[in-house]
């Protein structure tokens, strides 16, 4: 039974990879860009969920790592001549991780509301600084039109498919890494810290240090997402990458999708994108639809769309197997 399941899973994953590989050729550039945005925000939301869902730390300033990744990559490409695109992404990741390392001695001591507020403070500080230090960051205009050298081609700007494949490879690897991390003993300790930090401390694990590690990793992954977001738009701006809205967007995605699960945030991002797309076509008031969705989800689907999905799956199973088996499985 178990072997069959892993085989089925393998086939499903291969099918998904094949589908994504063929996507640009079949559906054209518009939908390819949509998938790319989905992937970027998925990595971003999952990286936040590493803190929120797995370690129990709510951050109101995750955008600063997203923005650091973007600004790091953009500045590197703009100022260092002949730099490849991969090292530039690396610069972005390092920038985000470095910021997290600097902040970590300060933030790992606190949790709960204080953690959230401290991040609000630093996030806003970085946002305002990015607006005001216009000699470095370009102020409100941000950094636009920086060169993006390709790996096989002169520039990625003229070949969006190449950017798509590069992004998919890197972002996919990131998602896999984060998923893998939740399965390691270290990931289990994180869940332990969320549920009962004192007990983990008594068991002999170093709570602040493990928090710092997961915090830095989460920041680095957010940096990857931000870096690709900058490359994709060929623009990094304070409002687009560092603003308070960018900090709240992944929180909302995580909550809508379901904070407890790994794939929940991705589902949340997908729902968001779908709604955005539909809103653009049929109505003008994004806010109204978004607001109503948030209210409905909190009041009626408290476990998020992932919970809804699991419920359907169980019901479907109940139809095919007898009930005792389902109860065992769940």
């Amino acid at each position: 039974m178990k072997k069959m399941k892993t085989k089925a899973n393998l086939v499903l994953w291969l099918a998904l990879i094949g589908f994504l590989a063929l996507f640009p050729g079949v559906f054209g550039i518009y939908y390819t860009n949509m998938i790319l945005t989905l992937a970027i925000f998925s990595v971003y939301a999952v990286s936040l969920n590493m803190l929120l869902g797995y370690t129990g730390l709510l951050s109101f300033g995750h955008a600063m790592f997203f923005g650091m990744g973007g600004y790091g990559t953009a500045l590197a490409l703009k100022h260092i001549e002949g730099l490849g695109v991969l090292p530039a992404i690396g610069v972005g990741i390092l920038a985000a991780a470095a910021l997290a390392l600097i902040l970590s001695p300060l933030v790992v001591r606190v949790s709960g509301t204080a953690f959230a507020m401290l991040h609000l403070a630093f996030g806003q500080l970085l946002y305002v600084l990015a607006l005001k230090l216009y000699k470095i960051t370009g102020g409100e205009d941000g950094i636009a039109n920086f060169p993006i050298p390709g790996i096989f081609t002169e520039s990625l700007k003229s070949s969006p498919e190449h950017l798509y494949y590069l992004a998919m490879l890197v972002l996919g690897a990131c998602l896999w890494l984060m998923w893998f991390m939740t399965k390691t003993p270290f990931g289990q300790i994180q869940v332990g810290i969320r549920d009962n930090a004192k007990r983990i401390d008594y068991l002999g694990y170093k709570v602040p240090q493990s928090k710092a590690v997961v915090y830095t990793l989460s920041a680095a992954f957010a940096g990857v997402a931000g870096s690709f977001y900058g490359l994709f738009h060929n623009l990094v701006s304070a409002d687009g990458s560092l603003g308070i809205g960018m900090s709240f967007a992944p929180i909302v995605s995580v909550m809508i999708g379901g904070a407890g699960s790994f794939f929940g945030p991705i589902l949340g991002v997908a729902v968001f994108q779908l709604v955005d797309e539909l809103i653009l076509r049929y109505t003008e008031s994004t806010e109204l639809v978004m607001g109503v969705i948030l209210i409905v989800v909190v009041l009626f689907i408290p476990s998020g769309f992932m919970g809804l999905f699991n419920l359907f799956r169980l019901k479907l199973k109940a139809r095919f197997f007898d009930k005792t088996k389902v109860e065992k499985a769940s």
Partner: protein
Amino acid sequence: MDPTISMYISQGMHGIAYGMILFLIASGLNIIFGMMGILNMAHAAFFMLAAYFCYQVVGITGSFWLGLLVAPLITAALGVLMERLFLRRAQALGHMGELILTMGIANVIVAGIKKIWGTESLPLQMPEMLQGMVNIAGMSYPVYRLFVIGLALVVLVFMMLLLYRTRLGKIVRAAVSDRDMVNALGININLVFMFVFGVGTWMAGLAGVAIAPILTVFPGLADQVGMDAFIVVVTGGFGSLAGAFIVSIVFGLLSSYGVQFVSQFAPVLMVVFMAIVLAFRPNGLFGAKD
């Protein structure tokens, strides 16, 4: 008097007036959080809504005073309704659920405002009595701002009396420290919550009406002032009225003197202040330890 000194003084007064308005919003936000643990993201939206209500009342009746009286009351009624219909059902979900819910409600309110009143900024005439300048010790100062300062002080005194001199205030303070215990003593805690939510949104509404003639009424009002008020609450410490008051005044002064001396970096000052305070006292200046 020396013109530079009188300019400093009038800048300071401007700062205090803005600080007072911040305090009106922040204290509502603060008391709701302190007691119910709800981070009310819709608070700023209610604040803005009251400004629009006032605009409407003035448009119909022509009386600013009536608007000042009626608009905050309608806003408070809506706030109570929101607490009763939505927030109470989300209580089981914990604070994250409430946060997302109030975010959703804020979105709906902003969308509604844009639908009904459009996106342009609407001017609100202040009453004739409050127009013009007054002479204080050789310098002229707009009457309206004095009125704002006075209004906020009156509300502050009223709140203090309510909280520290009445039985209801005692219950509210007790509920801030341990709501389950208060409930167990046979006090209908839900009713108290509803009341507190009403007072909180009423104060936000009052601030909205007070600021409307200065900044005009536009849909970005909530973002502009709401964020500042939020920072005030965070820096002052959740659940502390005194903290909110002091930090409001400090921020008001920082923003008005900041614009004068380091106009480039005026917005940074507030955030830097918040970051420094939180770095050493994560729960805010006067916040209780968790």
